């Protein structure tokens, strides 16, 4: 594998930006955001440069590495802190730095009224650096560092407005639930080390052949747990909705485009493990399918525009996980959907931010309406993203999502049919709730309060939205034209035998479009033909109520994990008080009691002490007398 000396700059530039902004403090208030944006953009250009170099090499020579330093050296176990850039990583690098830079630009304006804008940019740069480390690490341990780094950045940014207790709680919730997933990753690393003796990607890949299926399955399941935590997949999905407490650019960058897709990256990167562990792979598919429906159903009931989009993100990542779980045929499509989703979902989040910006930070869609006239650019970019997520040809989602649906159908047997139906149904529901968002926000009558003065956002905000909208329109075609991405990534994955086609691509597209049309139609009938109440109606069906409560995910967590946990801690506290404190206090009491009892001996008179010494001497002599008898 070729070595490089320039990879480190990808990470070093944003990391330096973060350090400068945090260390320089208020002195950098004036220029900090510009520096951060500049460094993020520089990192993007380094990525482009690496891509150009990579394009100039033949397929087998494309991956490059850079050893930074020897990190751990214990006996024969050695881990270097080194970076690796291959065909998969470069996709992520460009997505992270590209979308990241756009969101930096957007944030300059979006956060301009915030006193802590510099800190915000420092955290954004920290996130970029950590995310790049995640995708560039050449071993699971290096990946783990980045994995924790993005968790930290996510925590800091969700709780950026931590003066509001609810937001601080949301950040804590995200952090704690992520910890559960992180435990999975650390277990996976430990199992890998115990069974294979190595944790580098190349080493593990080479060791897969002579490792038991049980070990591989357990590693795979642990990696899946990690992925569900970071990517908000079932059953660790509950934090994503609350994570919308963070500023909207954060939601766009971290909780839509990049960080939440780290789970997909992890599974795709570990393809050699999942290919050898069918049970784990099946679990991945199941998790993806459940989350896909879960997110879509939650999305139908949310009135908060950001939470609706967050539910949609959860659902779309469900698609990606499902795709990645389908094995070698699905990896490339999962990555493709990840990239296109990065464009259109980030664009829509930025659009939502733009709407909020114009509506005094109102997030309730029932208080919107008829914004099309006031925010034409936002409407246009949001609309393009909308068409992309629906999968309307020729927008990006059409290429990526239909590929996943098609692969699901063709994965064979009953599993294929079930998965295909789920993905199709998910597409229909997606169409329904996204149409609902569009109608409630941009069309119909205005329902906003008198204080709201909706206006279009400044160019610094709509420019990134426009660029992302262009991406939403074209990225699907560009990536799938001539199987560009599939061929690009193919050296990384096992070659596979083609499944027999159950349904032809044309039929799948037709079915998907039909489902989408049905979804749109229902949404139109429900929200466009009827008046929309400015306050959410309460006399709704039990299903709506449940969906509004995020399908009871929090209640489930509280009942299954929190309540027993509370009981356990209560028991532990009682045990601590009764047994441990009791033992300590008891020891004290024994000492105190014996002290009180023996206090009588302490007369303070030297002579009585001397008498005691004499008695002791008598006892000693008596002992000698008895022993020498």
């Amino acid at each position, binding site marked *: 594998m070729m070595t490089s000396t320039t990879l480190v700059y990808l990470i070093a530039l944003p990391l330096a930006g973060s350090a400068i902004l945090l260390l320089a403090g208020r002195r950098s208030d004036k220029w900090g955001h510009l520096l951060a944006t500049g460094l993020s953009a520089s990192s993007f250009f380094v990525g482009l440069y690496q891509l150009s170099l990579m394009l100039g090499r033949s397929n087998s020579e494309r991956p490059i590495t850079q050893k930074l330093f020897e990190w751990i050296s214990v006996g024969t176990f050695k881990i270097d802190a080194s970076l690796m850039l291959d065909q998969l990583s470069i996709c992520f690098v460009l997505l992270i730095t590209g979308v990241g830079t756009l969101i930096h630009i957007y944030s300059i304006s979006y956060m301009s009224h915030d006193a802590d804008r510099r800190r915000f940019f420092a955290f954004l740069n920290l996130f970029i650096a950590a995310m790049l480390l995640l995708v560039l690490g050449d071993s699971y341990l290096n990946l783990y560092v980045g994995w924790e780094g993005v968790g930290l950045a996510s925590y800091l940014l969700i709780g950026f407005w931590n003066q509001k207790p609810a937001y601080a709680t949301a950040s804590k919730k995200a952090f704690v639930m992520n910890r559960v997933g992180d435990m999975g990753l650390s277990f996976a690393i430990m199992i890998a080390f115990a069974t294979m003796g190595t944790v580098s990607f190349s080493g593990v890949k080479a060791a897969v052949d002579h490792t038991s299926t049980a070990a591989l399955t357990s590693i795979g399941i642990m990696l899946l747990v990690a992925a569900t935590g970071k990517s908000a997949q079932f059953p660790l999905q509950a934090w994503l909705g609350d994570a919308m407490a963070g500023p909207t650019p954060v939601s766009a960058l971290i909780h839509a485009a990049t960080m939440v897709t780290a789970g997909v990256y992890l599974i795709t990167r570990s393809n050699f493990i999942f290919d050898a562990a069918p049970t784990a792979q099946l679990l991945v598919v199941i998790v993806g399918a459940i989350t896909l429906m879960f997110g879509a159903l939650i999305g139908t009931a949310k009135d908060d525009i950001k939470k609706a989009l967050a539910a949609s993100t959860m659902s779309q990542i469900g698609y990606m996980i499902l795709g990645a779980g389908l094995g070698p045929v699905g990896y490339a499509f999962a990555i493709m959907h990840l990239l296109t989703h990065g464009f259109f979902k980030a664009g829509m989040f930025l659009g939502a931010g733009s709407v909020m910006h114009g509506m005094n930070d109102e997030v309730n869609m029932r208080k919107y309406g008829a914004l099309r006239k006031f925010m034409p650019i936002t409407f246009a970019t949001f609309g393009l993203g909308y068409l992309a997520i629906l999968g309307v040809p020729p927008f990006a989602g059409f290429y990526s999502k239909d590929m996943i649906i098609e692969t699901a159908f063709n994965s064979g047997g009953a599993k294929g049919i079930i998965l295909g139906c789920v993905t199709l149904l998910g597409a229909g529901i997606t169409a329904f709730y996204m149409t609902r968002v569009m109608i409630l926000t941009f069309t119909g009558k205005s329902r906003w309060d008198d204080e709201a003065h909706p206006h279009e956002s400044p160019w610094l905000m709509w420019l990134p939205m426009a660029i992302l909208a262009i991406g939403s329109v074209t990225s699907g075609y560009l990536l799938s034209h001539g199987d560009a991405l599939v061929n690009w990534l193919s050296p990384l994955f096992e070659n596979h035998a083609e499944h027999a086609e159950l349904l032809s691509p044309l039929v799948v597209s037709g079915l998907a479009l039909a489902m989408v049309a049905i979804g749109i139609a229902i949404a139109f009938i429900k929200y466009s033909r009827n008046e929309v109440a400015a306050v959410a109606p309460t006399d709704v069906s039990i299903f709506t109520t449940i969906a509004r409560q995020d399908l009871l995910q929090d209640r489930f967590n509280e009942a299954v994990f929190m309540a027993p946990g509370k009981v356990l801690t209560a028991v532990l506290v009682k045990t601590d008080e009764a047994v441990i404190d009791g033992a300590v206090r008891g020891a004290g009491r024994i000492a105190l009691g014996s002290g009180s009892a023996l206090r009588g001996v302490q007369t303070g008179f030297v002579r009585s002490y001397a*008498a005691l010494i004499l*008695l002791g001497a*008598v006892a000693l*002599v008596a002992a000698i007398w008895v022993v020498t008898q």
Partner: protein
Amino acid sequence: MIDLAIQVGQTAKPEATLFWILAPLSVAAALGMLLVKKAVHSAILMAFVMIALAVFYIAQGAPFLGIVQIVVYTGAVMMLFLFILMLVGVDSSDSLTETIKGLRPTAITAAVGFGGLMISLLGRATLGRNAVGVEAANAEGNVQGIASLLFSTYVWPFEVVSALLITAALGSMVLAHHHRIQTRPTQRELSIQRFRSGSLANAAGLPAPGVFARHNAVDVPALLPDGTAAAASINASLKARGDVLNSSAFELGNIDTSVEEEK
């Protein structure tokens, strides 16, 4: 106990005589130490015990230790004791009534047990075992024998003990050192204070004993101008000891002039 009685009398003849005279005396003296009221008497009895022990040392072939015992213990240590007794008050006598309840019976019971057990143990250890005697060891002289041991086998403890001795000397100096808090009053100040305090009777200081008396001795009180004896002129210690002569015999009115007339 019969064994014990047999064993005790088995020292060689002249030494046995010495032992049987001195040992009961020293035990009696030791017991007396506990029973007399005055510390001075205790000290004298102690000195007797020590001299008796010195005799025993010499009798047992340890003439060097015997001499050292007399010089160091009876000479230096007991002198120190007496000196301190003088400082603390030679006339003080202790009450022998016990103030701590149950201490005396406990101590005596324990002591009887201790002594009995010790003697029983010693008897068990030495029964039927004849002493080798130090004649061989003392062939070149007792002092030479001890010296050769002291400066070969025991040279290191010897040095340590010398350091201990120096430390003890320094320690006693530190303990005895009196740190003056105020400046010493001058003679003038003392004199002013004397005249200002109470009556003028003491202003001139106490009368010296023997003044105007027929006997110029410390135990004879001075005579006041009116011919009566001045009790304050006698040291309180002498008075406490009862060593004061009856002063009335020396008062002017009672002088027996017949003696002089006879001359």
